[in-house]
């Protein structure tokens, strides 16, 4: 699971859960793989994300170094920044671990890099 994906996951489908966002990450194995850098793409996709959630997520797995906590104006022109963002968004991957719903504590396992967001019928709203 890449952190860009984590940025969009929620557990709000659970019965009694209101926002279910962001999910806490508990990683037992994090992998970093080099991925082709497309600065334009990174610049365009960042406005669609919740940057603070990304920062906290990166920090929780020890990858926030050098990453600003808040977005600066004109970040899309700052190549240095875009490289760092690229790295946490696409190169850092949680291979094993789990995600935790902030409200109910329900855990979602991550195995072989794939988060399992399936719910039992009894758990959903």
């Amino acid at each position, binding site marked *: *699971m*890449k952190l*860009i*994906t984590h940025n*969009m*996951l*929620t*557990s*709000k*489908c659970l019965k009694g859960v209101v926002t279910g*966002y962001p999910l806490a990450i508990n990683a037992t194995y994090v992998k970093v793989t080099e*991925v*082709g850098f*497309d600065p*334009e*793409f990174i*610049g*365009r*996709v960042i406005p*669609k994300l919740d940057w603070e959630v990304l920062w906290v997520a990166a920090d929780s797995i020890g990858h926030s170094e050098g990453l600003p906590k808040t977005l600066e104006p004109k970040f899309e022109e700052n190549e240095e920044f875009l490289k760092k963002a690229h790295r946490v968004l*696409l190169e850092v991957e949680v291979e094993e671990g789990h995600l935790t719903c902030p409200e109910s504590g329900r855990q979602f396992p991550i195995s*072989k*890099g*794939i*988060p*399992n*967001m*399936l*719910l039992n*019928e009894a758990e*959903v709203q």
Partner: protein
Amino acid sequence: MKVITSDTVPRQTRISLTFRWTRSGPCECSYKTLCDSVSKASDGDLEDQIASNLEELHVHQVYEQIAGHFSTTRHKPWPRVVEFTQRVQPGAVLLDLGCGNGKNILHRSDILQIAGERSSGLLVECKENIREVNAADCVRLDLLHSCLRDSCADVIICIAVIHHFSSRARRLQALTTIHRLLRTNGQALITVWAKDQTKSNYLLKTKSPNTEDRQVTVAGLNLPVHENRTQFQYKDLLVPWKLRRKTDNKLAGQPESTLLRFYHVFEEGELDRLCEEVGLEVERSFYEEGNWCVVCKKREVQ
């Protein structure tokens, strides 16, 4: 015998006897879509628990078992899907829901592609297939429940998935998830198998449907088993998959077993109506290679 034509006779006490034949065992009538032993619920739709059990047995478990074999039969994305996804704007977020082995994920690095799928076996194949794509990732999910943020997607594709839901209510629920995940004015391409296969390559000229219906009872329902490569006789049916085991990347020559996948095949306009019902405005709809396809847009809320 005296034939009375125009005489009227005052009504007297009459006795009428009706004899009914009560049958037991699986229903063998040929009115599967009307028959109440096929659809148990009063409004003709399957009860949710029954539908859910049916899909667990005849969709999810089957895909888990056939994942390896299925994946070897799915390499190239459909031209119409590529045509749609190629036009997606750079920087967009695209969701492929029910992605199977990820064959529809484009090798493009300027959009984010998230592949969602219920079968863990197919996701493993998918993960491997998209390894080379810069901004693509996999999530195990169920289309009935949304585990992604509302309005997170600019574009959604859902290719050959909605026909696996066995009740109308669940087909609507799946489309509601798509609606929910799309941003306003976001577009989706949805395709399903069509009941009418006359204009596709699916039919084998030499083959005609079995005159003797084969039926299977599952989850308390009787469902017809389809004869592959013939015209569909029913709308809700089981389609055989002859499983060939895959070992060391080689497919066995002979099928070792036959598994049955549930399908609800669509009439013309049926998918369009369901889309409209959940607030997806149909922009284009067409028939292609035995499938009904819809391009729709999430309406702005007034």
